[in-house]
């Protein structure tokens, strides 16, 4: 069987120190993206459990699997969660969600929780699209721009490149940073063009790290132009899977001239986390 270099590791986690049965409100968020799905459970506003897995061909099934995996080992089942909000590309296909909210609002709210109220610009680099968001100190969206017409500047584009170069997706960023000198970026217009350009560079004898550096640089440049359109405030954070790619993040920071805010939390769960935070507020409101 061929090695799937694009295939990233799926995982789940829960906090063994927290007793969910003691919580007054258990809220859940499910972010069904085009490439990955995340589920988050919060107990009275504290992060309790989450999962991150690939989205399958069936959105409702992906949502259910993500939620069940997040709840694995906790003794809880989906009906135990008081309020679930669906978000992401497949948000309207989460059968057990009481409400659907766009991933734009959820990423802003999630980033506010993860990085603190200082965050003003959020760049969500997802599997299929890229979103630039401005938010206030409460995590409410002030402006947004989404580009989902082409795969350039998205996680899927990076997966294509990992497969082409036979480099595990988790190693792409660090390998791209191992170049002695920064090469010129490849085409940032389209992943198909970028892939054919990368193939040409490999035939011309470029080592893998140099090709990856050229691609990461193109991706950083691409998303910078989105940020230029909505305006950039230096308190900025990156969410989504590409936020874990040091090669893109460091080049983005260099091009923008600012350092991205750091967090110990998993940047990929920001959308589901935001959805769970909305869920808590909506549940409390429904009981008033």
């Amino acid at each position, binding site marked *: 069987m061929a090695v799937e270099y694009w295939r990233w590791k799926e995982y789940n986690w829960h906090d063994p120190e927290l007793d969910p049965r003691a919580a007054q409100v258990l809220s859940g968020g499910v972010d069904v993206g085009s490439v990955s799905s995340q589920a988050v459970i919060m107990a009275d506003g504290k992060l309790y459990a989450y999962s991150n897995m690939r989205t399958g061909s069936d959105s409702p099934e992906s949502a259910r699997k993500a939620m069940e995996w997040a709840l694995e080992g906790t003794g809880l089942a989906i009906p135990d969660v008081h309020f679930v909000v669906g978000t992401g590309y497949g948000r309207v296909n989460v059968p057990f969600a009481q409400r659907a*909210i*766009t991933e*734009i*609002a959820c990423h802003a709210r999630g980033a506010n929780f993860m990085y603190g109220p200082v965050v003003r610009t959020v760049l969500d680099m997802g599997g299929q699209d890229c979103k630039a968001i*401005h938010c206030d100190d409460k995590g*409410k*969206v*002030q*402006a*947004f*721009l*989404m*580009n*989902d*017409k*082409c795969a350039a500047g998205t996680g899927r584009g990076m997966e294509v490149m990992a497969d082409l170069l036979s480099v595990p997706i988790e190693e792409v960023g660090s390998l791209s940073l191992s170049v002695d000198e920064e090469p010129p970026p490849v085409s940032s*217009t*389209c992943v198909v063009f970028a892939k054919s350009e990368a193939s040409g560079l490999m035939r011309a004898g470029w080592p893998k790290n140099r090709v990856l550096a050229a691609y990461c640089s193109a991706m950083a440049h691409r998303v910078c*132009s*989105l940020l230029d*359109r*909505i305006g950039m405030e230096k308190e900025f954070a990156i969410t989504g899977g590409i936020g874990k790619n040091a090669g893109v993040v460091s080049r983005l920071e260099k091009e923008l001239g600012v350092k991205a805010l750091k967090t110990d939390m998993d940047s990929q769960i920001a959308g589901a986390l935001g959805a769970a935070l909305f869920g808590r507020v909506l549940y409390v409101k429904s009981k008033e």
Partner: protein
Amino acid sequence: MLANFGYKDGSGDFFITVDTDGCVKCADHPCIAACPAGVLEIIVDDYDDTVCAVKDGHRKRIKYSCAPCKPATGRPELRCVAACPAAALAHSW
């Protein structure tokens, strides 16, 4: 909130911007009837505001949907923009 609907591709930036803070104050939303291509619709956004938005089906082809209102020469004021009493609509191209 400035909601940008549209896309950026190799040929340029094509976004319709709705200033929802202005849009929410308008009850009639005449922009919707003014658009000959039926690009706009009324939605309830994530913050429960009733505002105008670009229909999903037009977001990835907005350059072409709006093309009839944008002749290469002698371009008149865009009908949707002219109809908006709150000056809450703008086109990026």
